[in-house]
């Protein structure tokens, strides 16, 4: 293993090791590529919402390389160190042969203006590598982070379904993507020591992180950068020195024991949601609607929780499930119920130099009725007007416990204490839920903004309680389940 930590960023691109010595910590991967004349990757929004900048990153995982699509527009270049980078220019073979995803796009007439096309190609390429027989639904999910304004998507979806039916390419086949030479090259750019650029450090252990952050509590902790990236691209902010969490393997650990599921703060949202869904299958829909695959591949659950946005979608289910945050400061650790972590708008119970190291989700009792709902203008990749998660226990027809948590209703993600009180001790009846819905007005005075009015938020939040009752009620057979999500719709 080569040791070349110093002030260089090294990654593998098209089989070659690229060394960058003069990067600013906040140079985005997109800007870097374009400045190098590699202009196939496009800027459509600079906020991770359109996907025109999509590239694929390969990360060494034992003897295997994991490839995932990410948004290069909000990804800082130093975070690519040690990885394999694949851009739209990488895919065409030297003899000019197009990659199957590219050929399928051409054959299906899937590009019009072509500006979004490189991003679609890369999202489909990432899907191609991990799924040899994608369904229409898989393709649609893989494309949730890519906007096209020309085609109406039908031919792109067709191309995604069709690409895997083409002959195996010589270049960037699933086998070639795991070529020993590539793994060797990738291993050569792994550094034992933390990268140390001016204004950027990437510790390799929680210990080192805790020490560094305690020593410089004004530093900025950077994980996936799916929010912090926008501070640079949108707000033009100058950032304080950065401590990057993405190279700490133990902070990405997801562990499961008899009592709880524990998710390390730097685990990606993709991995975190998968672990949560394994325990709570009803989270599949919100997980799929949380941002987009590229954002979930970069972003972390710890980042979403630590950010504490009132409209973050992970907190309502975590609150309803009694999650705790694991906090670390220097050598000491503490556990705090998540609801106690949020003190006010953008205020957390965090001491200087203290950080979120993980999230612990105690296993819910087996008889818990649990659901999570998201309301937004668009089904995929939208920010919630209201996000709600409900966990109830019913014993002998009586509601013995109720946790009702909401996003979009207050300055912080919060439980609806009055509405919970209206349910606890009551019989499982629609009337109880109607009273709980009415009590929401005592819990919340939501804002009116571009996403929804205060009145809508309050009324729809109450109606979600009704939806929960109807969905879980045996007393109303034949009632339709919500058919509003394509993947859940029983198409007649």
């Amino acid at each position, binding site marked *: 293993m080569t040791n070349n930590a110093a002030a260089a960023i090294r990654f593998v691109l098209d089989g070659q090791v690229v060394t960058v010595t003069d990067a600013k910590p906040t140079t985005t991967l997109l800007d870097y590529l374009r400045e190098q004349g590699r202009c196939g990757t496009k800027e459509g929004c600079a906020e991770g919402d359109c996907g025109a900048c999509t590239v694929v990153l390969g990360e060494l995982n034992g003897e295997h390389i994991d490839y995932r699509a990410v948004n290069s527009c909000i990804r800082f270049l130093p975070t690519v160190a040690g990885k394999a980078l694949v851009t739209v220019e990488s895919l065409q073979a030297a003899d000019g042969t197009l990659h199957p995803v590219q050929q399928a796009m051409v054959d299906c007439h899937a*590009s*019009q*203006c072509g500006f979004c096309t490189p991003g679609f190609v890369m999202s489909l390429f990432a899907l191609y590598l991990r799924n040899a027989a994608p369904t229409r639904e898989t393709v649609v999910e893989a494309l949730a982070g*890519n906007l096209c*304004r020309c085609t109406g998507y039908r031919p792109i979806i067709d191309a995604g379904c069709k690409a895997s039916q083409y002959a195996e390419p010589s270049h960037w086949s699933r086998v070639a993507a795991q070529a020993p030479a590539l793994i060797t090259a990738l291993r050569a750019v792994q550094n034992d020591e933390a990268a140390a650029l001016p204004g950027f450090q990437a510790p390799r252990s929680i210990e080192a992180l805790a020490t560094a952050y305690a020593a410089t509590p004004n530093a900025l902790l950077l994980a996936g950068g799916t929010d912090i990236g926008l501070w640079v691209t949108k707000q033009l902010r100058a950032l304080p020195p950065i401590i990057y969490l993405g190279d700490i393997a133990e902070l990405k650990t997801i562990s499961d024991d008899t009592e709880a599921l524990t998710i390390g703060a730097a685990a990606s949202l993709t991995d975190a949601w998968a672990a949560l869904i394994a325990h709570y299958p009803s989270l599949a829909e919100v997980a799929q609607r949380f941002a987009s695959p590229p954002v979930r591949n970069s972003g972390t659950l710890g980042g979403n929780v630590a950010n504490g946005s009132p409209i973050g979608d992970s907190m309502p289910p975590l609150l309803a499930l009694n999650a705790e945050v694991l906090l670390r400061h220097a050598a000491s650790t503490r556990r705090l119920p998540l609801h106690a972590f949020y003190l006010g708008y953008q205020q957390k119970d965090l001491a200087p130099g203290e950080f979120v190291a993980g999230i612990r989700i105690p296993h819910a009792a087996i008889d818990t009725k649990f659901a999570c709902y998201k309301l937004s203008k668009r089904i995929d990749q939208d920010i919630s007007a209201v996000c709600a998660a409900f966990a109830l226990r019913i014993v002998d027809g009586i509601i013995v416990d109720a946790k009702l948590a909401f996003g979009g209703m207050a300055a912080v993600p919060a439980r609806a204490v009055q509405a919970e009180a209206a349910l606890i001790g009551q019989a499982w009846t629609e009337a109880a839920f109607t009273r709980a819905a009415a009590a929401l007005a005592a819990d919340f005075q939501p804002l009116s903004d571009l996403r929804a009015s205060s009145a809508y938020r309050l009324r729809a939040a109450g109606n979600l309680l009704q939806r929960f009752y109807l969905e879980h009620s045996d007393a109303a057979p034949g009632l339709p389940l919500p058919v509003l999500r394509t993947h859940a719709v029983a198409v007649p």
Partner: protein
Amino acid sequence: MSGAEATLPDTAGVGASQAHESAALHVTGRAAYTDDIPLPASTLHAAFGISTIAHGRVLALDLTPVLAMPGVVAVATAADIPGENNYGGIVKDDPIFAEGLVQYAGQPLFAVAATSFEAARKAALAAKIEYAPLPAILDIRAALAADSDVIPRQHLVHGTPDAALAAAPRQLSGTVTIGGQDQFYLEGQIAAALPQDDGALLIYSSTQHPTEVQHVVAHALALHSHAVTVQCRRMGGGFGGKESQPALIAAAAAVLARKTGRPVKLRLERDADMLITGKRHDFLADYTVGFDDDGGIRALKVMLASRCGYSADLSGPVNDRAICHLDNAYFLEHVEVVSRRLKTHTVSNTAFRGFGGPQGMMVIEQIVEDIARTLGRDALEIRRRNFYGIAQRNQTHYGQIVEDNVLHILADQLEASSGYRQRRAEITAWNAANPIIKRGLALTPVKFGISFNATFFNQAGALLHIYNDGSVLVNHGGTEMGQGLHTKIAQIVATELGLPASHIRVSATDTAKVPNTSATAASSGSDLNGKAAQAAAHTLRQRLVDYACETYQVTADAIKIENGIVQIGKHMIPFADFARQAYLARVSLSATGFYRTPKIHWDRTTLSGRPFFYFAYGAAVSEVAIDTLTGETQLLAVDILHDVGTSLNPAIDLGQIEGAFLQGAGWLTTEELYWNARGELKTHAPSTYKIPTARDWPARATVRLLEHAPNPEDTIYRSKAVGEPPLMLAISVFHAIRDAVAACGPAGALPDLPAPATPEAVLNAIDAIRLT
């Protein structure tokens, strides 16, 4: 699902589903857009400094702090414009840089040039600006109350509407509320201005209208048009948003290039783009309709108001087109329209696919639906009852005779192929049995007039070269924004010259090659430029034939050029060899072509004439489900039948239809523009402004072209324009949602649903109809 996926052989010309000429470049990332063009190392990057208030006097504009920022080389304000400080194409009321008065939040006051894009953006925020705020008019109702017109109102009276209304057995009044829409082309506005050695300028611009960019830049810099050359190889989408707006971007870049003597690139990042540039007009219509017991419309009176924003821009023609599409597919014998073009202190609204047509159609489609609901009849029946007739009942309210009516054919075919009747029955049964999830269905037609209303725009030119190796270069006045225009032009030239498409190359649109062009707009691209290219090809083909006749002593009927082979009697000569022979014989192998649309005329003062060469038609059936607890909606299925005449390229035409349909569906459902009480647009990026995603394309979709329907008019190969008309097929989505809302209330109750039908709007409409 409509396929048309077979890639036909290279020899295929017109009518083949040839892939987009840049498809391979698109998928490999090699297609170069304006921001990808390598520029000299001395190039500066520019950014606008913009107003932060909606309306007010500028008391002080201190740019000293801007100049002091790192990397800054120059700033430009109105004082730096040697010529005309205006980019308004019709009315000169659009300053490049506001001077003394700002009229919307986002209006450019100055631009700064710096050594990097980041430095320019940071510096632009450093200006010290003092305002004296003035009262701001922000929406249509406020502008109506204040009688705030940006251009004079128009009044159309056809027949005797007052008498007919009074005599009508029934009357209905209502309001139609229609939101705006951002174009959201994926490539933002951008231009680069490169000073040339003789004081001239070369401009790279992402524009649908290179000639207007040329003129505005020339006027701003007090140059002649010949000193400004504008080039555009391709745009990353336009949709009307790059018709008048690019002139602002290019002019600001040009002023800075002139001032610094260095190349200047001005690229708007997404937020700047959405804050600064115009959008689709939002509209409001108050109507009274008189009808009979069978649902036949007897008279219609409409006050049609649009929010134009602070300046005229293209609002005159947009509103004229709205008036001309108030009928959509229906015969209106007695009509009065008062058209208000309102001034507000918001961004100046501009062209967007459909150009007022969609808003006009939304009005009549709601009226037809509400007549049906009032009478307890299926809306399709009422639509048919009011369709234009073939030999009678065929004059529009602006005087044009509808000569090419295929509405009845479309409706009959689509009703059958979509299973409309059966699905209507199923949905009625579903709604009776299901209290929470309701479904809705609607079939809506489209009749869209093709031609620019202003007659003089309906002209085009092309320039065609045959090089002495037999390769062909074609240039024309149209621009490529993804719609496949260059592909179609290459197919036309290939067919005319008998060559494989690979022999033809279409080069970047360039004002130095084809002058005085019209915008690539109004769906006219292939109609106009295709005919011009065809004319140029005819000319060259004739020269080659004449040369062959003379050289080989044959008559013209002995000469065939096919698939790259020139057959002269028994001689078979490869086209390349033949071109070389012709060159050596000193035959001119370069020609221009010109076209002007026949038959059309339009009187703007009386709002009458024959503005349209022909009409394009279509129809769609949409089925939706709505959740009555939350107001969420889902498009479950769509069936489309659309008329493109004889298709030049079925794959490209299907792409236009599908893309326009979903873009229209976005307009009417998720795409909400939200201004706060201070007049600040808060939806200015994809995080807040929601265009459709892949999930929004319904799994059940059938999209077909109307078969055996050549254009009766002499258009290019009897094809029809396809850019805009299919957008309006999406009106079926809105009315399917409205239908589902109606299922929540008592029979005959009329849903009060504004567009876009966001979850909140739908839930409010459900609440309201349950109270009726």
